[in-house]
């Protein structure tokens, strides 16, 4: 039951209502009995349809009654001519429409309509499309009706371009129509398919999603919006350079529009001043109202802006399944593999062979769970990996998903991995043209930001554009935008902190890779990946750091060390002065020797249990955690972690 207000009624009213309901109830119960009895006796005739109709008119959610109607039609179709059936079905469509008028959200009624259309000898799809248009005028967001529309469109081969036009019209009436924006996200890839990545939208057209944001901001005037939609859609089908021109134009219009709005207000105030006093007073009242409209005119359309921002976020495409890295370590007797997508080697094991012969062993993922993962570890059950001499190791999931690495004579470890290009790891490579377009776009958004400095949607768009353009150079400004967003949207503060952490980590990884490419391998091994003091609330992209030996995550806001199980090679890990409670992801790290967790929120021994599965852990520092105050702390930790040689900087 939705949206039924509880109203206080007098006893008299209550009594009247009770009597009326009693009457209704009697009719309803008797009707239902009648239908069920006739059904039992296989009396599928006009009467059963009539009684069902009365009941459904009052309550279209009684699914069994719709079933009875379908059964009746099936029986009648055995003896009646197609013309007679057509007449019955036509009447049925009229009846369903009446029911939908009572309850336009009745699943049963909408599905029954699909069923009737599927069975009627001569369906009139044009009429159905009109019905959809009509019902979407009553309620532009009715998802039952949108779905029914898609059913009709598919059955009657309506051109996607016509449907796109329909969404344009809906948006012209109300640009907050998220249902329309959603439908466009389905139609555009059909109209402009990407030849290489089947089913995806062409990248250029995807980029035009970026303009949706300022475009919507500006859309306080219907005619302007209409012009813009036409312009952009026209651009899509034209040449790329024209496309870019079209896109750039829009935010400029936005600025013009916003300025126009301000100008109008100022004019209005001026007019008020020269008029009579009472009008002047009105004018004064009007001003703050208009100002608030102006400064907040993004807020009501937030959802549409959100739809737009999603387009930008959705930019990077999914990588095809492949093996990104293989690392073999004969001392550990393990092989670590990183895939481009999550796989489950417990369900479909990959084969590991050395110099052509298969090595027995067992797979586990980095979490030690039964689920899909991008990182899998193979523990070899024989000495095959430890044999002398030059060897080639191969991991093969399928013919097209395999990777080899070469172990030199005397070597105990080897890597084979995709070249990690720092600049293209997290952002798409940009042509000069695209860079120019994004730069202009950013400038326009910055102008909007001047008008509405606190608008979260504008700031978010600015952040995303800056990340696409030059994430490292624009880092400080990005962080500034985040600070403003965090002060504006306290409800979702943790979301924005996590998003900020993701971008900060991306930058840290890019810098690390840039530095690493300039120095020797042994220098890389000794270098510390430093992500300390960066206000991190969560950890991202750690699989890019699976070869890192030393890492510092101190002085952040971490509650858990999520994803650190991906740091396969880490031997020295520092995470002092966070708010750590959950360190379960450390479990199973094979190389971890030194772990510093000073000044965190570890209060019980059970929180330390995951460390029992770190075979090489020697030095552990828990100073400043309340767990240290427990009775017999030292001896209990030694009991739990017999592999330790040092605890809280004291030798054991």
């Amino acid at each position, binding site marked *: 039951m939705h949206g039924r207000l509880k109203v206080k009624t007098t006893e008299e009213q209550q009594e009247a209502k009770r009597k009326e309901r009693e009457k209704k109830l009697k009719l309803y119960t008797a009707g239902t009995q009648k239908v069920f009895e006739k059904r039992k006796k296989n009396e599928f005739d006009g009467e059963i349809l009539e009684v069902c109709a009365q009941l459904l008119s009052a309550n279209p959610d009684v699914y069994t009654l719709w079933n009875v109607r379908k059964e009746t039609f099936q029986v009648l179709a055995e003896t009646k001519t197609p013309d007679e059936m057509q007449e019955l079905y036509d009447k049925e469509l009229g009846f369903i429409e009446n029911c939908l008028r009572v309850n336009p959200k009745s699943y049963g009624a909408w599905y029954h309509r699909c069923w009737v259309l599927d069975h009627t000898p001569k369906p009139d799809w044009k009429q159905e499309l009109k019905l959809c248009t009509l019902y979407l005028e009553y309620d532009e967001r009715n*998802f039952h009706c949108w779905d029914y529309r898609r059913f009709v469109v598919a059955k009657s081969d309506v051109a996607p371009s016509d449907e796109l036009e329909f969404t344009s019209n809906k948006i012209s009436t109300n640009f907050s129509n998220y249902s329309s924006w959603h439908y466009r996200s389905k139609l555009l890839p059909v109209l402009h398919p990407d030849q290489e990545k089947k089913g995806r939208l062409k990248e250029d057209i995807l980029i035009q999603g970026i303009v949706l944001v300022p475009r919507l901001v500006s*859309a306080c005037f219907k005619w302007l919006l209409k012009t813009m939609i036409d312009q952009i859609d026209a651009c899509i089908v034209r040449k790329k350079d024209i496309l870019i021109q079209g896109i750039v134009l829009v935010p400029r219009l936005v600025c013009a529009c916003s300025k126009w709005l301000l100008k109008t207000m100022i004019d209005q105030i001026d007019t008020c001043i020269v008029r009579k006093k009472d009008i002047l007073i009105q004018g004064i009242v009007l001003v703050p109202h208009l100002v608030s409209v102006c400064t907040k005119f993004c807020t009501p359309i937030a959802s549409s802006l959100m739809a737009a921002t999603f387009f930008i976020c959705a930019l990077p495409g999914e990588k095809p399944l492949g093996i990104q890295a293989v690392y073999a370590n004969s001392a550990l007797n393990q092989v670590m593999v990183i895939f481009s997508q999550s796989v489950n080697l417990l369900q479909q094991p990959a084969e590991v062979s050395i110099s052509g012969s298969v090595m027995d062993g067992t797979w586990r993922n980095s979490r030690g769970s039964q689920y899909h993962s991008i990182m899998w570890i193979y523990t070899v059950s024989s000495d095959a990996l430890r044999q002398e001499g030059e060897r080639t190791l191969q991991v093969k999931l399928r013919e097209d998903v395999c990777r080899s690495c070469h172990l030199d004579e005397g070597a105990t470890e080897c890597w084979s991995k995709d070249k990690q290009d720092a600049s293209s790891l997290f952002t798409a490579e940009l042509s000069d043209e695209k860079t120019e377009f994004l730069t202009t776009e950013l400038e326009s958004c910055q102008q909007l930001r001047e008008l509405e400095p606190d608008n979260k949607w504008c700031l978010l768009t600015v952040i995303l554009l800056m990340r696409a353009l030059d994430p490292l150079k624009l880092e400080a400004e990005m962080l500034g935008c985040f600070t403003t967003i965090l002060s504006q949207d306290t409800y979702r503060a943790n*979301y924005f902190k996590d998003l900020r952490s993701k971008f900060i980590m991306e930058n840290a990884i890019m810098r690390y890779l840039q530095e690493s490419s300039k120095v020797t391998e042994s220098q890389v091994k000794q270098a510390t990946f430093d992500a300390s003091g960066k206000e991190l609330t969560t950890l991202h992209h750690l699989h890019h750091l699976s070869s890192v030996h030393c890492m510092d995550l101190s002085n952040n806001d971490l509650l858990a060390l999520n994803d650190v199980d991906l740091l396969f090679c880490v031997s020295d890990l520092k995470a002092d002065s966070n708010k750590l409670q959950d360190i379960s992801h450390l479990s199973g790290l094979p190389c971890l020797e030194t772990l510093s967790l000073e000044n965190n929120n570890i209060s019980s021994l059970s929180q330390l249990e995951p460390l029992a599965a770190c075979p090489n852990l020697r030095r552990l520092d828990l100073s400043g955690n309340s767990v240290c105050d427990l009775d017999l702390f030292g001896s209990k930790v030694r009991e739990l972690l017999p592999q330790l040689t040092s605890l809280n900087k004291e030798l054991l």
Partner: protein
Amino acid sequence: MGTPIKDVTLKPTAPKEVFFYKHVTYITSYSSKKDDYEYVMTEYLRMSGMYWGIAAMDLLGQLNRMNKQKIIEFTVSCQHECGGFGASIGHDPHLLYTLSAIQILAIYDALDSIDVDKVVEYVTGLQQEDGSFVGDKWGEVDTRFSFCAVATLSLLKRLDAVPDIEKAVQYVVSCMNFDGGFGVRPGSESHSGQIYCCVGFLSVTNNLHYVNADLLGWWLCERQLPSGGLNGRPEKLPDVCYSWWVLASLKIINRLHWIDSKKLTAFILACQDDETGGFADRPGDMVDPFHTLFGIAGLSLLGNHSDSIKPVNPVFCMPENILTRIGVAPQIL
């Protein structure tokens, strides 16, 4: 111009405590008014209605106040020859009510009182060539039914019986949208209720890696309105039931902290009726068992009434201890 934000304002006098015993009374008395107009008019969803009441009572630790014997007898009597359950006597079998029936019997540890193989046969028989599930023999396809199918089989420990689980998964994944959400069928708009079903489906089948958790989590947390309540889609009013669906989905993808839980708690509490007990969709509206369960379950997930409400499982919307007893542990990111 755009639509102004649709929301409600919580009155300063709005309830701030849980009316524990009033809810217990509301649910127990609801089922005793069998000749009541509301009761008769909702006959077509009786089985789900019973599940809402029973699950709520169990979460409140008051299940012993319900007539176990009668409820089990009624549930069993709604099973049809084909194995599926109808909403009530005389009503046709359907996946929606089959799941509700199995949930009721699971809560009462009474699954041995029905022919489980028949249920499995019914559910598995509803899978289509493309991997989707129809709700009953009349052919309506909906991702809700994909969820009902695997949730039912999972509670019966017969998930292995799905004819083609890979196709079932691919069908649900094909309903994913640009915003990370899911709709009724491929092409349908994202909707919190469907998202709950699809994320729940992927959780039950251990396939949560298909979810773009950051993208979906963002869409979900943007559902929170200034009143603290959550809506089901952009530009819609907040509602206790959507609060549950969004909240449970966030819990499953480990992003519960992305909303303001204090504000949501205040909204849910404000939806209580201080006279009759029970929860409404919004403050001041009529209460019903459906919103009462989702109000209580929401408070349970938010974890700040753990003294009076048992922990709820976000996927099955049943007390965790029931799932532990059966040995069902759906994936949580």
